[in-house]
């Protein structure tokens, strides 16, 4: 506001007034999610929390303030929890609190501007023309006249803010997380018995989740020992599952990979199972003809198992990237995290090798200037004669990634790629790193092998 920015301004205007403005695209879905998370956090202060979309929360703190040492202290703690950019207000009625927080009055609602009624432009300008600037002015007038002139909505909202009619809070009902606990009258001595109990709990959880059409993606099993030591096992899956056998398999994998094995000590007192992250998972439909379920791409269970055992960075898939340097045109990402990456339909692209060398290997090359293909090259001490060659395929440097890369000569080295075949019949992908016009003595590298 200080710099002259106001909501509704175009980005160009805003940037013109304040060149160092940090911007981000509007993401209403993410905003809604953050608001829900905040609502969940506010449960610590009161059980009645309501969303005031798109960017507000209503907390009914009747009877809760004394637990935090008074209303002032409560407000301070809430603001501390939510963050510094909040506007807050306390009032006897929720509509009043809302109006005060949004339109910045002091404690008295009568000093609020008429914009607090959130009517449309026509009604608001009508109110202003009539000389009614604050809610106090409106409150002094008879309601019937206001209703006739400015509509029922204005009057009902005014009444709500003034407290003459109620404005109930509809609390957010947060879904209960799925959590099961089993306590043993006598400590359980063997790990295998404990795992059987876990399997039973998984079956119970599967029933609950089936009713709620949920599947778990992150599961945590905590084993409480009688000497108060706790051991926590967490497994993750790529797709939501509720099948107890699948989760047991992953838990056993996790136990196998533990650096120090599970030691019951004097026995386990309790075991808890919690589903930390659940996704919607509809009930599977069994095909009538085959009786088996479809598994078009059913390596997800295998990917889960191997990711638990070897680490999620060891089980990866290829995704295409929109870069034209060959080593950057694709990336390997953990298969557990990837939902699906479609490779685009091939347009006419120059041939690419089957294997890329990572990193490209330097080779010594004899070639004619300025852009003839190599005639001989030496790799790993062996000399190869080049019999057939195709190229060059010129791939420029990514000048837009370098500071000042648009200036001539500062872009980085252009690569000239050649597909060559040597006397033994092996086909290679070699490039010269830099044109002879860019560098006096460009190096050559072997970047790939063709079949």
């Amino acid at each position, binding site marked *: 506001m200080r710099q002259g920015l106001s909501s509704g301004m175009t980005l160009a205007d805003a940037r013109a007034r304040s060149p160092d403005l940090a911007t981000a695209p509007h993401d209403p879905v993410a905003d809604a999610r953050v608001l829900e998370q905040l609502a969940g956090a506010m449960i610590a202060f009161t059980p009645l929390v309501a969303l005031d979309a798109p960017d507000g929360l209503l907390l009914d703190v009747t009877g809760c303030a004394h637990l935090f040492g008074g209303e002032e202290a409560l407000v301070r703690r809430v603001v501390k929890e939510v963050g510094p950019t909040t506007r807050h207000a306390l009032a006897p009625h929720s509509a009043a609190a809302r109006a005060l927080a949004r339109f910045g009055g002091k404690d008295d609602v009568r000093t609020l501007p008429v914009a607090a009624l959130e009517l449309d432009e026509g009604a608001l300008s009508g109110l202003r023309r009539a000389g009614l600037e604050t809610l106090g002015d409106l409150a002094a007038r008879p309601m019937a006249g206001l209703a006739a002139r400015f509509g029922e909505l204005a009057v009902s909202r005014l009444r709500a803010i003034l407290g003459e009619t109620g404005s109930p809070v509809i609390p957010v009902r947060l879904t209960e997380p799925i959590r099961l606990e089993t306590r043993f009258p006598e400590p359980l001595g063997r790990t295998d018995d404990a795992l059987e109990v876990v399997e039973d709990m998984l079956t119970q959880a599967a029933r609950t989740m089936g009713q709620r059409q949920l599947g778990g993606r992150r599961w945590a099993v905590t084993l409480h020992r009688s000497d108060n030591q706790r051991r926590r096992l967490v497994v993750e899956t790529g797709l939501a599952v509720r099948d107890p056998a699948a989760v047991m398999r992953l838990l056993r994998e996790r136990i196998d990979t533990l650096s120090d094995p599970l030691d019951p000590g004097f026995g386990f007192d309790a075991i808890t199972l919690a589903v930390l992250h659940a996704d919607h998972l509809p009930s599977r439909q069994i095909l009538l003809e085959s009786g088996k379920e479809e598994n078009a*791409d059913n390596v997800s269970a295998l990917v889960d198992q191997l990711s638990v055992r070897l680490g999620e960075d060891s089980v*990866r898939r290829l995704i295409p990237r929109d870069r034209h340097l060959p080593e950057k045109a694709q990336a390997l990402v953990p298969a557990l995290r990837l939902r699906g990456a479609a490779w685009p339909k091939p347009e006419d692209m120059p041939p690419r090798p089957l*294997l890329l060398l990572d990193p490209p290997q330097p080779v010594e090359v*004899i070639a004619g200037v300025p852009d003839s293909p190599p005639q001989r090259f030496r790799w790993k001490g062996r000399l190869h004669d080049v019999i057939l060659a195709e190229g060059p395929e010129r791939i420029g440097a990514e000048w837009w990634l370098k500071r000042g890369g648009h200036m001539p000569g500062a872009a980085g080295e252009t690569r000239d790629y050649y597909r060559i075949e040597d006397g033994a019949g092996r086909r290679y992908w070699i490039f010269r790193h830099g044109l002879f016009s860019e560098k006096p003595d460009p190096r050559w590298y072997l970047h790939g*092998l*063709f079949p």
Partner: protein
Amino acid sequence: MSRPQAPACIEDPPPGTLPRLARAQLHEVHASAADWASALAFAFGMVEADRARPVLLLRPRRKGAGFVPCGEGLRALGVDPARLVIVDARNDAALLRAGLDAARSSGPAAVLMESWGAMREYDLVASRRLILAAEGSLIPVVILRGDAEPRSSAAHTRWTVSSTPSTPLEMRAPGAATLLVELVRRRGGPAGQRWRLEWNEDHGGFRELPLDTRPSTEERGPPLPGTVVPLSAVRTRAPLRRTA
């Protein structure tokens, strides 16, 4: 009356045809590191696999520079790069264990395992387990052995693959991928044949070429102009002495 000849089984291909890397079987492919792209291309191209399901490629950790499959290159062999799942194992034992689990699951279309050097853990027992897994899930399992001596195993077929000169395209450009493959061993069938295979893009498969009509040096032409004349042409009777 002479006994009628037992009719030849209709399913058996006539001897001499190139067998594919069939389902429910274990196949070994031997190649050197320099021919690794050819070995992989052979595995991808000849394996009998469902075209829609994913392919698992398991690799061990290798010191130094490594090979990374290139998505566009895979597509040139008719394999959708999105189908590939690449698993990196810490050592050979972990590789075999992961390969066994992969072979036992029903999801993948094929399981390819790369290995380098003498894999001590890959013995008769390990290969038998892989075969049982493959037979249970009906998927082909191919183990690519790089720079390795063949060791006795229960595999159904053992191949040696190497690159071989291609038929040049116009303007002296290298031609399509051309491989020389030899069926070293086959369980329950003739072995010892060799084939020269060329990748055919239009049909998306390997095409057999006659073995004897390799492009000769004359057809491929001399080395590109400008090279140094080979030393043998100027060698005199006395061996060349290194100066300094």
